[in-house]
Each structure stands twice: as C-alpha cells, then as structure tokens.
C-alpha cells in the first residue's frame, strides 16, 4: 500500500466535501465535549458525596416539654396525633432514656462517635447562625431540643440508625442530613443524565452526518472506485480513503472537544469565573481528572466515525 497515494486521496475527499466535513467536525466536537463533561460531572458528584457525607451526621432530637405538651393536646382532641409527635406524648425525655440511647449508640459497631448537645448549646448555636433574624429573637432555650450528634464509620449506612431509633418514646425525630444531601445528588444525577441524553442525540446526529458524508463521497468518486474494482484493487484499499476521511474529521472534532474541556476547567473552575474560589463548599476536581478523560475522548472520536464510515460503505460502495 502506498501511503502517499492514500494520503492524497484523503485530502481530495475532505476538501471536496468541505461543508459536510465541517458539520461532522462540529457535531463530533459537541457530542464528545458533552461526553467528557458528563464523565467529569459524575466524578465530581462522587467527590462531593465523599466530602459532604464525611461532614454530615445523624442527629437524634429528643422531646422537650413543649413537644410533650403539643402531643398531649393533639391526643386529647382526638385528632390522632396530627398536631404533635406521638412518641413525645409521655412527656419530655428522661435522663434514663438519654442514658439508654447513648449507650445503645455507643454499642453499635457502625457508630464512630457520639456527641451530646444540650438545649442551651443548641440555643447558642442557633443564635450564632440565625441571631440577626426576627425569628431568632423570639426563641427561648426552652424551645430548643436536646440532641445526640452521631458520626458513622460508613456514612452510606445512615438508614440503620434511623430505623433503630425512630419511633421510640422520648425521641422527637431522627434527622439525617444525608437525606437532604441525597436529594441534592439526585438532582445532580438528573442533570448528568440529561447531559448524557443530549450527548446521545448529538452522537446520533454526528453518525448520520458521517453516513451521509460517506455516501456523497462515494458517489462523487464512483468513477475512481469503479476503475479500482475492475483492475483488482482490494476492497480494503478502496475503502481506506473513505474511512480515513471520517477518522480524520472525527479526530479534529475530538481535539476541539478536548480544547473545550480544558478551557472549561481553566476558565470556569480555576480562573475566569473562578468557581473554585467562590464556592469553597465544593471540592472541585483538579487537572489530573480532566486530563485523564482526554484519551477516552480522542479514542472515541477516532473510532466512532471510522465505524460509521465502514458501515456506510457496506451500503453505498459496491466492492
């Protein structure tokens, strides 16, 4: 096989279909940028999960006098506990119950540490956080609940704690912050799925464009390929220029996608918009993660158009 001959054939083919080639490059670039973007996004979500799960803990809020009063009133009015928490009906939490809960928590192998927060401490924390609001000034320490703050060895298993303590006498609610985080992650997950969906559509568009490009290309060179067939050129030799054309266009598109990903990291996260400095709550990925995705993008950018061209040739090029 003469490389120079093949290369010149590819050049001629790409120039002949310049507009089509541009369309292929742009659609491949966009779909692969979305592909890389969604890879990065799911990695970022994973990182955030680890980061926030570690910080979040399970809080077991205990009944105070006010809760007991509300629960009692609700029961007497026959409303079936609508206005209060049923487990608080027997009164505020007792010291005995507290001790029992604490020792049970400490006995659980899942639990890393348990801290007790008294109502006064809770009041202090609340004032620190919301002290400037009107609501905060109307709150008294009596209204605050005592609580146990539990850290787990495996944060994913918070549901075990919830099911063990929820519904017990003296416990108002078991609140795990992970529940809230999970909701957030669910939203991020949907966003990621949407990105993947758009990527899939773009990818289909890119493939259809490639198929069409190959068809036009095969048609405009039917004279050459006809002669090649007659003089006994192998089907591989006849097909290679078409496949290489698609591969070159795909590779250029993939390079654009890489540029988009790298400049996204540079301008949105590190500099420019500078999300890394502005949102310190999120542990953003570094360059290593971005660079690690680029080979995949390039590989798919090379492979996918070649496959599409190969399939299109079976249909449109008689060999």
């Amino acid at each position, binding site marked *: *096989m*003469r490389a120079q*001959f093949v290369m010149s054939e590819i050049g001629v083919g790409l120039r002949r279909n310049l507009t089509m080639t541009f369309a292929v490059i742009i659609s491949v670039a966009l779909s692969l940028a979305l592909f890389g973007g969604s890879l990065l996004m799911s990695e970022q979500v994973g990182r955030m999960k680890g980061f926030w799960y570690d910080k979040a803990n399970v809080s077991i809020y205990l009944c105070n006098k006010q809760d007991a009063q509300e629960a009692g009133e609700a029961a007497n009015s026959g409303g079936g506990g609508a206005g209060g928490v049923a487990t608080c009906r027997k009164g505020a939490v007792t010291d005995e119950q507290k001790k029992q809960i604490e020792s049970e928590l400490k006995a659980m192998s899942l639990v890393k540490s348990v801290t007790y927060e008294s109502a006064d401490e809770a009041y202090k924390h609340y004032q620190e956080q919301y002290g400037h609001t009107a609501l905060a000034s109307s709150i008294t320490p009596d209204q605050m609940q005592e609580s146990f703050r539990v850290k787990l060895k495996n944060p994913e298993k918070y549901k075990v704690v919830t099911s063990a303590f929820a519904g017990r006498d003296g416990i108002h609610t078991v609140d795990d912050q992970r529940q809230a985080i999970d909701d957030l992650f669910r939203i991020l997950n949907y966003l990621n799925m949407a990105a993947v969906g758009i990527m899939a559509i773009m990818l289909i568009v890119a493939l259809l464009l490639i198929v069409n490009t190959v068809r036009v290309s095969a048609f405009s060179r039917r*004279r*050459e390929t*006809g*002669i*090649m*067939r*007659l*003089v*006994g*050129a*192998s*089907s591989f*030799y*006849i097909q290679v220029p078409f496949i290489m054309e698609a591969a070159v266009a795909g590779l250029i598109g993939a390079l654009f996608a890489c540029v988009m990903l790298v400049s996204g990291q540079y301008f949105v996260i590190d500099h420019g918009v500078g999300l890394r400095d502005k949102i310190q709550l999120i542990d953003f990925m570094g360059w290593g993660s971005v660079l690690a995705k680029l080979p995949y993008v390039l590989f798919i950018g090379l492979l996918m158009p070649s496959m599409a061209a190969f399939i299109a040739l079976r249909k449109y090029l008689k060999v």
Partner: protein
Amino acid sequence: MIRFDSVSKSYPKQSRPALREVSLDIAKGEFVFLVGSSGSGKSTFLRLILREERASHGQVHVLGKDLAKLSNWKVPQMRRQLGTVFQDFRLLPNKTVAENVAFAQEVIGKPRGEIRKAVPQVLELVGLGGKEERMPGELSGGEQQRVAIARAFVNRPALLIADEPTGNLDPQTSVGIMKLLDRINRTGTTVIMATHDQQIVDQMRKRVIELEQGRLVRDQSRGVYGYQH
C-alpha cells in the same frame, strides 16, 4: 481459460432469464467476438466472467478457477489477471494520460519503479508515445480508447474483455483499435469482444459466439457477424 457449463442467470424481478443453459469453452490465446442484439445476454455473459454477478445455475470457470467457489476477498486477485475496456472509455478526467494508466498499477500496490517503467512502455505499444502528459479531454475518441486499452493492458492480463470498444468511434478509427486489439491478442492474451459492428466481425474472421434471448445460438470459428437473410 474460460469454461461455461450450462450456465443460467436470472435476475430477481425478471421473469425471463438473461442467460439460459450456456455451455462453451474459450482456450488461451483465442480472439472471440460476442454478438447478438441488445438484451441478448452479452453484458451478463461478460459480467459473469468478471464475477460482478454469480451464475444462478451451472458453473463458470475463469483461469482455471470455479467462480462460485471463489471467496469474495479473492475476487480482486482474480481481476488483476483480467483487463477491461468499455464503450465509454471510463478515464479519470482530472488525471493525465500517464496518470490514468499508472492508476491501475498504483491501486494494486505496484512499486513506483515498476510503474515508471511500465507506463511509457505500454503507451508506446498503443501508439500514444509522447502524449503522456495530455489530459483525456484533449484527445480524440480513438486516442482515449487507446488510453483505456493501455490501462487495461498495463498489468499484462491473461484475458482482455472489451465491451463494444468501437461503439463510440467512426469506422476508420475503429479499424485502428481493432488492429491494436489484434496485436495484443498476438502477445498471447485472450480477447473477448462484445460488438454490434458487422464490418469489423466480417473483416477479422475470428471465432464468433452469438447469443439470442439468453441462448447460445451460434459458435463458429472464423465466422461473420450474421447469416444473410
């Protein structure tokens, strides 16, 4: 060289078969005219030899190989031993005469040195010496057909298939082309030529095979185009 054993060919969606029970032998070095009216099966006959089509029934042997048993990827190798010439020349308009001929060697991966030697030689043989750098559009029809013959012959095929090579040419030019084909035949190359040109067939006095509605109706050595009615 070529053997047809009761070969039939029918195309899908056509009730009448294009070839029916055709049996014949063509030996190495023969010059054969293939005659018959349009739709008599001449083209199908040639396409079967080139393995552009497969026989529906019967066996086609070309160069000692049963084409039914030849796997697809071996077909290009087989075609390298065949040269083909058409009525419409089928030259590449954006390549020079020499490039057109060289194309047939480039695409089968011949080394550059060999191409550089073979192309002027074969152009000399077909009488186009000195016109290497001309474009096909600048040549007369007869000269273009000579380029096509040069391209078909440059790989020294054992068999040359010509499908109405003089169909687009005036009688005088046709005579020149026939002389060239005769010369190629004398080098030992088998030539099969489909034609409607009565004058040429009658002059050459070669073997004539006549097809009519897909049937072989005449196989005559040193024959003429048709019986006088």
